C-alpha cells in the first residue's frame, strides 16, 4: 500500500477524540478490578467480624487513606506512561514519598511500643498471608489493567506494566482492609506495601510481554 493511500484511508473517517482517554480506561479497570477484589474478599476471606465498629475508628481510615493515596500516585504514573514522550518522574517520586511518610508514621508508633509487643506488632496474626492475599486480590485487576493499556501507547512496557500492577495492588490492598483486622501501622507499612510491590512486579512481567503495539 502506498503511504499516501494510507493517509487517505485514515483521513476518510475521523472520529472526534474525547480528552482524558487514558484516565477513563484506568478508572474503569479500577471499578472492575475493585469489584473482583471485593467479591474475592467476601466469598473467600470473609469481611472482618468487627467491620461495623472498625469503620467508626481512625485506624481503619488511616490504613485506607495510605493505600488509596498509593493508588492515586500509581494511577497518575500509569496515565503518564500510557502517553508517548511523557515522563512519569513526578508520579514515582510521589509514590515513594507516600510510602516514606507512612513508614515514618509506622516506625514512630512502633518505637513507642513496649519491647514485649514489638514483634507481635510486626507479625500480627496474618503476616504470613497478608502479602500473598493482596497479590491474589490484585492479580485479576493487574491483568485487566495491562490489557487495557495495550490500547493506549506505552513506550516503556516494563515501567508502564509496573505502574498498572502497583495501581491494581493498591486498589486491592484498600479492599483487603475490609478483611484484615491488623491495627499497627508498621504492619501495613511492611506487608501491604510488599503486596502492592508484588502486584507491580507481576505487572512489569506482564507488561514486558503484553505491552507491544
Amino acid at each position, binding site marked *: *500500500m502506498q*503511504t*499516501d493511500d*494510507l*493517509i*487517505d484511508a*485514515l*483521513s*476518510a*473517517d*475521523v*472520529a*472526534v*477524540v*474525547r*480528552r482524558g*482517554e*487514558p484516565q477513563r480506561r484506568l478508572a474503569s479497570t479500577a471499578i472492575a478490578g475493585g469489584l473482583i477484589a471485593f467479591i474475592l474478599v467476601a466469598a473467600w476471606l470473609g469481611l472482618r467480624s468487627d467491620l461495623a465498629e472498625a469503620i467508626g475508628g481512625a485506624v481503619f481510615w488511616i490504613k485506607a487513606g495510605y493505600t488509596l493515596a498509593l493508588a492515586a500516585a500509581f494511577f497518575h504514573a500509569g496515565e503518564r506512561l*500510557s*502517553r*508517548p*514522550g*511523557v515522563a512519569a518522574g513526578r508520579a514515582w517520586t510521589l509514590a515513594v514519598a507516600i510510602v516514606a511518610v507512612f513508614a515514618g508514621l509506622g516506625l514512630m508508633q512502633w518505637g513507642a511500643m513496649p519491647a514485649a509487643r514489638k514483634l507481635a506488632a510486626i507479625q500480627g496474626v496474618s503476616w504470613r498471608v497478608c502479602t500473598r492475599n493482596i497479590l491474589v486480590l490484585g492479580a485479576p485487576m493487574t491483568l485487566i489493567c495491562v490489557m487495557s493499556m495495550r*490500547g*493506549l*501507547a506505552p*513506550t516503556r512496557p516494563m515501567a508502564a506494566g509496573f505502574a498498572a500492577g502497583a495501581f491494581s495492588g493498591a486498589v486491592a490492598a484498600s479492599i483487603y482492609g475490609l478483611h484484615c483486622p491488623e491495627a499497627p501501622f508498621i504492619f501495613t507499612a511492611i506487608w501491604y506495601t510488599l503486596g502492592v510491590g508484588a502486584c507491580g512486579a507481576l505487572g512489569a512481567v506482564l507488561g514486558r510481554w503484553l505491552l*507491544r*503495539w
Partner: protein
Amino acid sequence: MLRGLDGDAQAHRQCLTLLRDRLRAYFGRRLTENPEDAEDLVQEALLAVHARRATYDRNLPVTAWAYAIARYKLIDYWRRRKVRFALPLDDVADFLASRTPALDDGLDLTRALQTLHPRQRALVEDVKIGGLSLAEAGARRGYSEGAAKVALHRALKLLSTRMSDADG
C-alpha cells in the same frame, strides 16, 4: 492536530501528511540500507499516530509525542530484527530539524513567545515576522540599532531554550 482530534478530516489529513515527511526523514536516515523497511515503518508509525491519537496530551508539543512513537517503532523494528545497540537520546534533534514545515511549531512558538518580556517579544515579531530591519524595529521599540541587535539575539536564544525545554 488539535482540529483533527475534534473530527476535522481535512486538518487530520494535513497533520498526517506533515508527519509523513518528518517520519520519512527520521526513518530514512536510520535505515539507509533498507529504504523499503523505512517506508514500512513510516506507515506503521502513521497508523499508530492515527489509532492512538487519544494518547496525545493537548498541553504538550505534538512533535515530542510523534517523536516518541517513531522512536518506539524503530526500537521495536530492531528488536524484531534482533539488532541490539543503544539509540542515543539526542537523535531527537534530527527529528525536530528535518526540513519540513512544522505542524505545531506555530503553536509551540506562540507559547514560547508569550514567555518573553513584551518589549522583547515585540522586537522579535517586528523583525522575524513583520520583516522590518533592525534599525526600523529598534526605532519603533526605543532601542538603538546596536541595542536592538543584542536584545534580539538574547530573545532568540531564550526562545530556543524555551522551545527545546518544551520538547524535552
